């Protein structure tokens, strides 16, 4: 595999992983009260009433994470496809093809999550 193909495959995979992490972070209804790291908050401050994940601005803040994750995954799809268009050795096609497929699947899921959040709000 040529350097450009290796770089694009690795970078696109990194973006897919980052997209997954960002989306996961956005879904988490975390807070200092729930955090294990910041146990002092739980110990000394009475917890606020529970917040539903669909409450504003949790819902929108989570959507910001999902949007950035979606853009990240779309970037991975684009870069993998561009890599495929410029690198045609069998191994390059195989690797970049798999990466493009994984990135596309991630992008599709994230697009659903983003638009689903929008519908839920309306």
């Amino acid at each position, binding site marked *: 595999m040529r350097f*450009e193909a290796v*770089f694009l495959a690795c*970078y696109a995979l990194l*973006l897919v992983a980052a997209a997954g992490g960002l989306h996961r972070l956005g879904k988490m209804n*975390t*807070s*200092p009260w729930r955090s294990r*790291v*910041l*146990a*002092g*908050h739980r*110990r*000394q*401050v*009475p917890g*606020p*009433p529970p*917040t539903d994940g669909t*409450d*504003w*601005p*949790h819902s*929108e*803040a989570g959507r*910001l*994470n999902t*949007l*950035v994750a*979606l*853009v*990240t995954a*779309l*970037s991975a799809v*684009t*870069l993998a496809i*561009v890599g495929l268009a*410029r690198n045609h050795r069998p191994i390059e096609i195989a690797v970049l093809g798999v990466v493009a497929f994984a990135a596309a699947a991630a992008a599709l899921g994230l697009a659903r999550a983003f638009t689903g959040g929008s519908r839920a709000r309306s």
Partner: protein
Amino acid sequence: MTPPAATSPSRRDRLIGRGWVQAAVLITLFGFFVLVLMGYQTYRSSPPIPERAVTAAGQTVYTGADVRAGQDVFLKNGLMQYGSVFGHGAYLGPDFTAAYLHRSAEIVNRSYGGSDTATRRTVDDFKRNTYDDKSGTLTVSDAQAQAFAALTRHYAEFFAAPEGKTGLRPKAITDPVQIKQLTSYFAWSAWAASTERPGKKYSYTNNWPSEPLVGNTPTADTVVWSVLSLVALIGGTGALFAAFGRWNWLGWHGRDQRELRFREPRSVPLTPSQRATAWFFFAMAGLFLVQTFVGAAGQHYRADLESFFGIPLDRWLPYNLVRTWHVQLSLFWVSVSFLAAGIFLVPMITRRRDPKGQSVLTHLLLGALVVVVLGSLLGELAGMRGAFGKLWSWFGMQGFEYLDLGKFWQILMTVGMAVWVAMLWRGMRHKLAGESRSNLPWLFFFAALALPVVYATGLLTDHGDTYTITDFWRFMVVHLWVEDFLELFTTVMVAYIFVLLGVVREKVALRVVYLDIVLYSAGGVIGTAHHWYFNGEPAEVLALGAFFSALEVIPLTFLTVEAWSFIRLGARQESRSPTPFPHRWAVMFLVAVGFWNFLGAGVFGFLINLPIVSYYEMGTMLTANHGHAAMMGVYGMLACGFAVFALRYLVPRKYWSDRLVSISFWSLNAGLAWMVFVTLMPIGLLQLYHAVDVGYWDARSLAYVGNPTNAVFEWLRLPGDVVFIVGGVAPLLWLAWNAVIHRRRDGAGGRDGLATQPQSAESADAADSREPELALFTEVTDPGGRDA
């Protein structure tokens, strides 16, 4: 913690423990003490400019006057917005220090025969410091003199190229005298970058740039302080988390027991000065739009140096001009929003009417800003084309990146900010008179006052000084003003807005502000030195910069952790208030600020902060990656957030559209993420790899920057930029325009109109006794229903 104490009978009590105030003052003083020491070192240890560089036979190669004049040619032609010297400047053109060093080393090596012996002799030629301090004479080898002559011819061809295609104007510099002066400047910078500092085994630039031909490799300081910098980061972050775990009162906490009723924006009275800010926000959005257009033009040069879709853009708008405008406008539009937000907030803080003439002053300030913006941008255009004669640095292109505007415009800008502070004082003086100087109103005023004061230090940047000294003062603006004091002002503004909204108690906001001052003063002030690793400062400055700038990431981590509590506060109040929260999208912009603060400033900033990384990375697209994600992601989003906050009151309900703001919000974030992930970061990573693998000078060459792989990445940026401009900026401009044209459709509580307060009294003092407080946008009540 010492309990709060009264400061004077007539003033409100200090709301925060004395220890916080003392810690903030002491740490700030310590930071500035070290900064002044570094300034002293800068003047003492910067590389000297020899009176003359001569061969052993006594033939003059260049003079000190040539070097100084060369620096002027470099600046007035905007070459710092094209390429760089000592790694500082723009990213399209080469780094002239590294390029000169490599090319001259190759010539010297060839003239010595090109063997291993020749390589050792070349290293000795460049490393041995032959500068005689007493006579001011630098003795260079014949081979180096030959290299100088060859490179003078090279630069004559490069800068006078009739066909352009370099990003510069065709025939940009044709005068042979200027070419020789410019080459002398590059030669001097290459000498400082390679010859050993007296008594040391490394060069004036701590052996930057990496250049095996002259024996330039990372120094022990560069490596060791990178490691210690990591220790500072990990230790500091651990200490922060430990503090949060130990003291539960740190950070944002809400008004636990009180209930809020948000007023509808149309029922909130606006003063004439507040209504005048509609023009500011319109100017802000307009400047933002222009900034994106010139940014797109600059980006096109990176994708295709040949032409702009068949149009020879470089004849009228060369790269160095559009980048100058792009950088200047980024400061202008963000500043306009901050100034307007300050003016808008004052009546809300004081709950008083405008003092007499405040609205007129607001309009005058806007006029002055328009004059400075237009005057400086046109001055840069004319200055690059040789206008203004000896006054080029006053009215034309002063030429220091981020301080490109002529000194005259720079002074006007400083005066404008001082007038703005005076306006805030006029509006707040009654409120301030009754407050402890440690409380939020005074902190708001002090943070505002710091802006013109710190910006004014940039006036000490003088084109006649040695580069290292000019860079010291330049970074007072680029780092200290932008990264520290704007950040402080931002924190105070956001804290105050949340207090006014009733979301947090003043005491909590004060603690956050003081913690911010302590953390930023510890890291940010001394951390300014992370820009000076390799620009001619001594190794001590590198050490201080590396260690303390690592601490800058800690407050960013704090902000990210706190962003969740911050968001939660809004959610709780939204669910309790019987009326809807009017600032959903302003808060969303603040959420975006938190996100980009951590990613753009924290992650991408620290990525390039270690001296050993910076050694290879400086001036590559990873710097642009950090710059865009942090500047737009943090200050840009914040400026938009302030605008949306104010526009919510300025635009009548009939013309307001939450949908437009939401489109703008999502488009700005999506466009910025695309820009970063598709173009800036991959290109930056590839360029860094190339700099380590092949050589820094080559990674910064036009041939490398324009290679086919890079071109693909650059073109791929286009869709994201379109989304950013069309979906992100245009809606803001439309809303701001609506604020301008409909701002006079007043009438308190009137249909579709804006509520207003009566005209200002003849004398604020006379009105003081009978003036009712202005209604705020939030009513705070305790659980029993009593108004708070």
